[in-house]
């Protein structure tokens, strides 16, 4: 069982500092767990990271968060990483390739996993929160997040590309000592360099402007002060307060609410009026 984690040079969503994207750190945890399940945590068959780009300094954090080795395909700035990655992955043939489901503010476009799955002719399972060995030998059991806590279990056979959903378990802690011991292997790709698509957008993080806090009461409970400071807008304020309602009425209200937020399917038996 060979497990690869695609690592990209992301940016912190708030500070803009060059960091390992959170989803990829979560992917590492999934990879480490899967490695444990297959008993491949040490040596050459341990899960490894793969990065293509000019510099591996940003993704070196991954060494402290669970990976022992990163393979770095050295590419000049602005070159499309997909051909080099596809070539390298075709050669090393990992059974599982894990990636984040989207980019995080760096140079990455977020479609690399899809392009790679196409190039390698592998299935792509999106938004997984866990990967475990299947009951049958040679299969993998993946849990896909459908949002709001709903999961779909998928069993696949053969090599697969999977992208990781934010609902996956939080990343492992960064261990400085481990990062120190990890290795980065620099590789020269043989694929012909192709310029990546230029993306003519500039991204700046949105930041709420501070509110002037005026006349907030000094006493009272924390909840009262919060209400006074933030105003009574928000989801809670739009609700209806029913005092001692009839059970049927209460049930109707609850059902209506559940339909509104999409937990219960819309009422189809009711004739259209």
């Amino acid at each position, binding site marked *: 069982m060979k497990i690869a984690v695609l690592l990209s040079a992301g940016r912190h969503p708030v500070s803009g500092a060059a960091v390992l994207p959170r989803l990829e750190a979560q992917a590492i945890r999934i990879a480490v767990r899967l490695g444990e399940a297959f008993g491949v945590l040490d040596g050459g068959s341990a899960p490894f990271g793969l990065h293509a780009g000019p510099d591996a300094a940003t993704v070196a954090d991954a060494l402290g*968060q669970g990976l022992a080795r990163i393979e770095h395909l050295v590419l000049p700035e602005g070159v499309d990483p997909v051909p080099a990655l596809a070539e390298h992955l075709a050669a090393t043939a990992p059974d599982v390739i894990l990636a984040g489901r989207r980019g995080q503010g760096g140079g990455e476009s977020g479609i690399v996993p899809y392009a790679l799955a196409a190039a390698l002719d592998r299935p792509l399972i999106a938004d997984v929160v866990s990967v475990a060995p299947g009951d049958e030998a040679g299969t993998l059991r993946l849990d896909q997040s459908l949002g709001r806590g709903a999961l779909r279990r998928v069993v696949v056979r053969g090599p697969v590309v999977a992208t990781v959903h934010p609902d996956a378990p939080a990343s492992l*802690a960064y261990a*400085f000592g481990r990062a120190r011991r990890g290795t980065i292997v620099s590789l020269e790709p043989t694929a012909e360099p192709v310029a990546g698509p230029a993306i003519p957008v500039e991204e700046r993080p949105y930041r709420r402007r501070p509110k002037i806090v005026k006349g907030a009461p000094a006493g009272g409970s924390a909840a009262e002060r919060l209400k006074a400071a933030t105003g009574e807008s928000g989801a809670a304020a739009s609700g209806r307060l029913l005092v001692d309602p009839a059970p049927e009425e209460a049930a109707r209200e609850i059902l209506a609410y559940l339909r509104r937020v999409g937990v219960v399917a819309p009422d189809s038996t009711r004739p259209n009026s």
Partner: protein
Amino acid sequence: MHSFMPLTTVFPGLVWAMAALALVQTARRAALWRVGSAAPVAWLHGLARLPRRYLVDVHHVVARDPYASRMHAVVAGGLLAASLLTALAILPPLAQSRAYWLLVALAFAVTAVGSVLVGARRYPAKQKRLSAGRFQILPFLLLAYAVGGTLTALLLAVGTGGIALPFTLALAAAGGLGLAFEVRQGPMRHAVAGALHLAAHPRPGRFEGRPDTALQPLDLEAPRLGAEMPADFTWNRLLSYDACVSCGRCEIACPAFAAGQPLNPKRLIQDLVAGLNPAEPPYAGNPYPGGREAEGERGPLARLIGPDARIHPDTLWSCTTCRACVEECPMMIEHVDAVVSLRRYQTLERGALPEKAIGPVTELRQSGDAGGRPLPARTDFAAGLDLPLMADRGQADVLLWLGEGAYDLRYGRTLRALVRLLRQANVDFAVLGPEERDTGDLARRLGDEATFQALARENVATLAKYRFARIVTADPHALHALRNEYPAFGGPYTVVHHTAFLLELIRAGRLTPGRLPDLSVTYHDPCYLARYNGETEAPRAVLDAIGLARVEMARSGKRAMCCGGGGGAPVSDIPGERRIPDLRMAQAAETGAGVVAVACPSCTAMLEGVTDRKAEVRDIAELLLQAVEAGR
């Protein structure tokens, strides 16, 4: 007369034999200390200062329990005097003197009285905080030695030994040799290890009148980071753990122990001792709350931390680093340093932070704030106030360090009060604004020294760009890091806590507060201000200046109880039976004061989070602003 002469030699000979046995036992013990790593020790200076450290610094702590202090003075003083005098009787002129033997008998009699005092703490029922085990035998050994010695010396003084003398001598020998034997792994170890520890103390600054409380920087190039096993501690730290006399004062002071979290400082130190010494007798004190029995391997290379090792990780992460145990320890043991060393290994080498602490530490590393909040938002609390930025000014008299509390809605109120007071007093001040990063206090206490050092270097570089005379901060954690821990990273600053600065402004007449006599207030000392920096007077003086009726809690000043907010304990969130802030607010309620005055963002958050509290929690800056406004 023939049997009389040898006995005057045999008796002193017994004391010399005791000394030799104690020396052998010490040497056997010292072989264990030698497995520790090297440490620089100023031996000559330490030994020269030993009497002073013992009689002043140790006594200061011991005397908080007057009974223990008197007991120890009588029994230890008597034991030393009697043994020394007897040992000197090896000289024939002294051995011939009946008056001399009378003096020896007197010294032994004093020891006997002391032995009874020792026994009275343990029989019929031992005090709850004391350990049983071999300590229960101690009064009998002392009594045997003292009574045997008294009778022998008396008989020698009277000169009519006869048939009784061999028996009294045998009694003294049994007690005396027993005591000497106990030097290796029994109660008497504390005497030898304690004395050596005082001379070779890893924080000698404690005895020179300065609060030597900064964590020592870790060399990030070292082959192993932090302590995994006993051999990773320096030898004088191993020695210090051997000094533990199991008195249990630390466990009474420990907030985590009181809250039923799985930490008992005494047990922790004893586990370090037992981890080092495979032959250590079983622990006989109060267990870790939760009743976990120590298990796991022992020996200098034994793994200390783990669910299956002697110390459970939860024990390690329960500590709030409040130093209450260190403050109460009569043997001057540095428990918090031990906890941080062990945490460093867990965090730096194993990445084994508590699950809930991973997020904040990661954010701290990546964005310079534990909440991952935008650095420019730190000044949002002051929207509408004029808050000058250092970047615009380049210099100011006072640099106001805002700290993490600035992001908190509640604490923003305190900082707004402080800013308005500074304006009122026409103080020339500025803030770093978006350039201010977290001091890294949280990361350091949780063992992430790498993140702390990176943040410290960034902050030192930022501060180097500007000219200012002093840093004022309302956050004692930031104060401790900036004042005591940043000098190691090239940043020697004059750092003043806001309470001390406000007091200065009042005394200089730049603030003229009115009086608020209707409020009754009790002041809760922040650990990082009182214990870490010894500042307990300025906040009280400010409260007195505004005419508040001030009452003290039973535990106050340097012996105050922690709010539970330090050392990363709130983010580690180790479950206990009670919550530390609830306990502290209950102590505040006992005073009947309507206001609990605080001087720290962590204390504010912890104490205000207490449900059903009767008292209001207000920072000293808020109270002072109210008084200033009342005075106009």
